[in-house]
């Protein structure tokens, strides 16, 4: 755990930042998943992907709505989603990784879901009842997301030689982004201290145990590359996020006076 900051971060700022982190990850991953609409490998997957995207965007609406309320600056969830530039986003880098093929999409989902489930379990016992309430609702949805992504990782990892190779390549590609969720900063430390959110590092053993067990059943090999990529917490993202936002925010940016 990093050293506590010398000056105390105001409680509302800690809560606001914590809500953006969890809300932005849900929003950006939900957006990515929604890009599949109409292009999935089977009709059942079209339906399931839309479902996951809907859940995540619904959760983002709640998290960002609460964040805006805490901020008290006259913004709402839409203003936070559609009027911030990339540097203002606090999502995990894993969430913004482009879909590429179905293997990357499924692997990204699994690695995220396994963290998300742990994170929400921690948020569900938050000292802030508003946080706990949203987390409890999201937990039910994410339990299903994790069940689905696990099943797909196992099925495709232990499927044909091609599906195995694609899943292994996806895992290798995404592995460097899997350390970030567990490396907290001063804000996370303050949030943990206040009992608002779990300590990020404390979520890692549960995540690792689950991921290792599922990947073993999927006959996939854990990459030996470092899990070093990070930047989401401080708004330093990859190039792809700017393009995603350019698309997502187009109408609100082009017609700033309009109501939709």
């Amino acid at each position, binding site marked *: 755990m990093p050293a506590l900051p010398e000056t105390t971060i105001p409680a509302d700022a800690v809560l606001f930042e914590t809500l953006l982190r969890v809300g932005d990850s849900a929003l950006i991953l939900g957006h990515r998943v929604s890009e599949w609409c109409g292009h999935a*490998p089977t009709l059942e997957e*079209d339906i399931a992907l*839309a479902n996951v995207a809907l859940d995540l965007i619904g959760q983002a609406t709640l998290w960002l709505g609460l964040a805006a309320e805490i901020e008290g600056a006259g913004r709402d969830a839409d203003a936070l989603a559609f009027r911030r530039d990339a540097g203002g986003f606090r999502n995990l880098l894993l969430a913004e990784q482009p879909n590429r093929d179905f293997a990357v999409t499924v692997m990204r989902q699994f690695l995220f879901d396994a963290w998300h489930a742990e994170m929400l379990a921690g948020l569900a016992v938050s000292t802030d009842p508003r946080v706990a309430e949203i987390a409890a609702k999201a937990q039910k949805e994410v339990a299903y997301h994790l069940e689905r992504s696990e099943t797909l990782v196992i099925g495709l990892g232990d499927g044909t030689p091609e599906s195995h190779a694609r899943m292994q390549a996806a895992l290798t590609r995404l592995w460097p982004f899997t350390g970030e969720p567990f490396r907290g900063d001063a804000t996370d430390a303050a949030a943990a201290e206040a009992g608002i959110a779990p300590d990020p590092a404390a979520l890692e053993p549960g995540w690792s145990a689950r991921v290792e067990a599922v990947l073993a059943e999927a006959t996939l090999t854990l990459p030996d590359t470092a899990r070093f990529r990070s930047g989401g917490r401080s708004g330093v993202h990859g190039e792809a996020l700017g393009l995603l936002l350019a698309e997502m925010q187009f109408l609100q940016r082009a017609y700033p006076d309009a109501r939709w």
Partner: protein
Amino acid sequence: MYAQMVTSEGGKARDEMTPEERAFQDRIDRGERIEPKDWMPEGYRKTLIRQIGQHAHSEVVGQLPEGNWITRAPTLERKQILLAKVQDEAGHGLYLYSAAETLGVSRDELTGMLLAGKMKYSSIFNYPTLTWADIGAVGWLVDGAAIMNQVPLQRTSYGPYARAMVRICKEESFHQRQGYSIMMTMARGTPDQKAMAQDALNRFWYPSLMMFGPSDKDSVHSAQSMAWKIKINTNDELRQKFVDQTVPQARFLGLEIPDPGLAWNEEKGGHDFSQPDWSEFYEVLKGNGPCNAERMEARIEAWEDGAWVREGLMAHAEKRAAAHAAE
């Protein structure tokens, strides 16, 4: 209307029918439902496969023009509503393929025919969605036209099709309301938004009228489908009903229907209106519409790129089954 110009076959005059065929027609005339295991004439089965298959394909291809705006939906709420709507369309595709399967044709076979260009989907989905107002227009007009056709199909003679329609109609009426809600917001919004709403109506009006298909009052195929209660109303009846329903809705929005010939006809108790350009309709059916190539490419790509996923999951299921059997 998601099934257009479905050809029926095997229609016969009563005195040419076999005793089985006559008994079958009597059941339909009495308003009985035909179920999958019941005897049915081959023509009835084939015509239904064509119609339900075309309807299913339309739902699946229909995801694309609306999916085009999911990533650009202007608010979180609109994005969720649109996602839910497009998800419903995929679900409708699923019920309809399942209904077709009860007639002895698999979903993969039907998909193969769609991708090979041997089966059609509704002409409407070959038109582009160029602005957010088009998403409103699609819900209002396209789903509105679909409901016109699908409400009577809840009484169609084939049980699985009729039951699928009951559920589909409930969802479609929600879709139409969401489309109208977008149009209302746009029509009462900024001048730019109002212009987008009018432009969307201008572009989708005639393609929506085409959804009902050309006049079929003299069509033998339609007569046979109506005798079998696979088709309940003529194309012209449904089109008239659609126009009469939509004109006051457009007026309420303060938008103008792009038809100088539109006028209330007291005598017939309905509107007179201009026919769409049917030569355009036939070109779109032939594959020459604004988005035919893109829609088919997207579906072919999804199918081909997804092959390894389907094969992988099948291979895994087989391994599991083998391991289970060995235990």
